[in-house]
């Protein structure tokens, strides 16, 4: 498709070519356009250090969003990931700092909490036949409440061994970016190559057809939400490492950023489509926008307005793109 755009490029006005390139290349085109605009508007934007900073800012959203991608591809939704991230980090810190467990035990415990939360949501959806919106809305509340209960409402210091996850290697490479890349590759592998990944597309595309073709729909849904919980736990731990403490109110509202990243990345909320690369681009678009607007000293209030507009624009462009290729 991009080859086609390139072939047609000569003879068309640059503006038209630009629009077409954005339309044809979808989210990536949008990211490139946004970066170009920011680079023109702010001299500091393109500095390597700033770009890595964007990567760090995108990391938590991206990891959460990779998990949410699984759920959205299978035509579900997960509103609980922000709370689950906070709960996992809180449990990890509580086990290591308050209870004195070694980090090698506390970390798996924190990850397990994410998986269990996902399994509970998944069981409510698959076996309890609750709408995913409701089941995960309930989990959003429960997980947030539990992290407040466990922490008593105040931050717990994160074990220093784990704080390295928020470090910068060799003075330039931030570990959160590495974690994002690793989780992104894992998500891409799951989606494209594993049985569960292919089943997600089938379930999201047509659940009844999937069931009648021998996909164990209920069990796969459990796995899907458990994966989402696991990714949320990783995101929560990375966030706590950056802040060097687990805060019970951390990551509030991040589930919406994660969903926005998935949708900007080209996935359909009605299921059956989605890519890890698209989700990463979606998270980067959100981070570039925030970083750029910060550099331009745009007020936080107007930043929210801009973010909303970009979400609407991105999905609108994607819809137009799909329609033009139909």
């Amino acid at each position: 498709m991009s080859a086609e755009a390139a072939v047609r490029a000569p003879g068309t006005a640059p503006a038209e070519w630009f629009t077409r390139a954005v339309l044809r290349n979808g989210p990536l085109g949008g990211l490139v356009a946004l970066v170009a605009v920011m680079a023109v508007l702010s001299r500091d934007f393109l500095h390597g250090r700033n770009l890595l900073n964007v990567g760090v800012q995108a990391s938590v959203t991206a990891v959460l969003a990779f998990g949410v991608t699984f759920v959205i591809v299978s035509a579900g939704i997960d509103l609980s990931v922000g709370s689950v991230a906070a709960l996992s980090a809180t449990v990890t810190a509580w086990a290591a700092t308050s209870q004195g467990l070694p980090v090698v035990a506390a970390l798996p415990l924190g990850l397990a909490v994410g998986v269990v939360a996902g399994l509970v949501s998944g069981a409510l959806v698959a076996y309890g036949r609750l709408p995913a919106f409701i089941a995960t809305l309930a989990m959003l509340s429960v997980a947030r409440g539990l992290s407040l209960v466990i922490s008593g409402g105040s931050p717990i210091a994160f074990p220093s061994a784990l704080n390295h996850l928020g470090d910068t290697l060799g003075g330039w490479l931030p570990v959160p970016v590495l974690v994002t890349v690793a989780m992104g590759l894992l998500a891409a592998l799951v989606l494209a190559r594993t049985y569960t990944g292919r089943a997600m597309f089938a379930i999201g595309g047509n659940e009844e057809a999937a069931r009648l073709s021998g996909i164990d729909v209920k069990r796969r849904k459990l796995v899907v939400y458990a994966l989402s919980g696991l990714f949320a736990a990783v995101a929560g731990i990375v966030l706590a490492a950056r802040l060097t403490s687990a805060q019970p109110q951390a990551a509030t509202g991040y589930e919406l950023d994660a969903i926005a990243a998935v949708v900007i990345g080209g996935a359909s909320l009605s299921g059956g489509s989605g890519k890890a690369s698209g989700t990463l681009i979606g998270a980067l678009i959100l981070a570039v926008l925030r970083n750029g607007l910060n550099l331009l000293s745009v007020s936080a209030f107007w930043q929210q307005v801009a973010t909303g507009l970009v979400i609407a624009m991105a999905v609108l462009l994607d819809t137009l793109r799909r329609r033009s290729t139909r």
Partner: protein
Amino acid sequence: MTGVNDDVRPGREGPPGRAELLRVEGVTKAFPGVKALDGVDLRLLAGEVHVLLGENGAGKSTLIKMLAGAHRPDTGRIVVGGREVAVRSAQDAERLGIATIHQEFNLVPGLTVAENVFLGRQPRNRLGLVDRRTMNERAARLLERVRLRVPPTAPVAGLGIAALQMVEIAKALSLDARVLIMDEPTAVLTSGEVATLFGIVRELRDSGVGVVFITHHLEEIAALGDRVTVLRDGRSVAEVPASTAEDELIRLMVGRDVTEQYPRRRTPAGAPLLRVRGLTRRGVAGAPGFEDVDLEVRAGEVVGLAGLVGAGRTEVARAVFGVDRYTAGSVEVDGRVLRPGDVRAAMRAGVGLVPEDRKAQGLLLDAPLHDNLTLARLHRDTRAGLVDRRAQRREAAAMAGRLKVRMSGLEQPARTLSGGNQQKVVIGKWLLAGVRLLILDEPTRGVDVGAKVEIYRLVNELTAAGCGVLMVSSDLPEVLGMSDRVLVMARGRVVGEVPGGDQGPAAQDAVMELAVRHAEGTETGGETGGQTGGEAGRQTGRETGRQTGGDKGNTSAMEGSDVG
């Protein structure tokens, strides 16, 4: 349907004196990878019923979508009332007096009949509010014309499929349409409803409306049509009078002679493959039950399952495949009892099901063909959690080639294939899963003549290779022609067996006799009693369509009309 065939009027070949309403000239339309239309001409006169005939995928849908403003031609002209026009939107079509009744209705279930008829054009009073009284009065007059006896204030949600269609026609009438396009309007109607529909279409025709009528039922052409335009591979290949012989029409449509309609080649039956004993389930709302069903399918055998709608055939098929549970009885494959309600157990034993509603139950409509073809073998292609996608593509490509699926490539979404090709993909999915007992539920519904014969050939290939086939079908000639034995069900029970191979009227009568006698007291029984076997065959097909189609009509109306 009595009286349909003897309605022969003089001059029905379309005398040249009539005004031309619509002309399509040399229209072409290409979609990515497919040339949907490749030079189509069509001429519609005032006061004629013009049948548009062609296999699935011949371009009928694209053509009528073009006239409805959903697609625009790449080249060629559309002339309405002597002027060349561009139909860019549904509103343009409306202004030009072209109304289209699609197979999937555009009605809003939650609104009343009158609100649907005047949707978006409700009469207003001086305050700008909807003038309900005027609207209902005007709707009542329109309903009178289409002989629909429901109050204009009735919600559309509760109406049957025939009534929904009449509401659509009333809507077209309210627009004062000069050109009415009907896409397979009879596919989901009972004979009685078809007769009413034909009456209304004739009235419209006599009042000067030009009707474009699409149907797969050849006998309807002579009964209702004046002229026929035949499409093949996106081209209009002939314009002939409606009195043209059916064989000739088939030849024009398929491009060759279809000599054997039911090319069943019997293979000697081997060991019992499937044995169902005493299968019982109580009916629930929307799904009839079945009782004490015994049946056997041997290797190399095709066993047909015939009967009226609601006889429980589909339910038995689903229970055998483990989709639904049953309260008593057992299903054995190769002498081993299957766990009830376990699709995967059935699949492991080599059973596959081609479901009744391929779009809702058989396909991932927006997924590429290779994903659809390999869906049922996903497990088998998985090693240590990882799917061998390369092997999957290879297998899918080989199967698509073997089945001669007409596609632009394996990446093409299943939604964009014609009905016959979609069905081939669903069957191919099971062939790739290594099926040994294939259950086909209405395998050729909405499938054109050419693809039908290809599907029958596949059935022959399967049985020649020692597989067994259980075929549920409401098409009596088909189920008799393709089966080695036909079991007849009525009211959830197997009430008799008829030998297959002979699809003549006597055999059809024998099946209907069994089906109707044991379903005594039902409306269908009374209606079909005095008719010939052929008529009765159509009857069962239509009845089935009405039930499933009714639901479909409602959902699609809710989803809007973005299909395709």
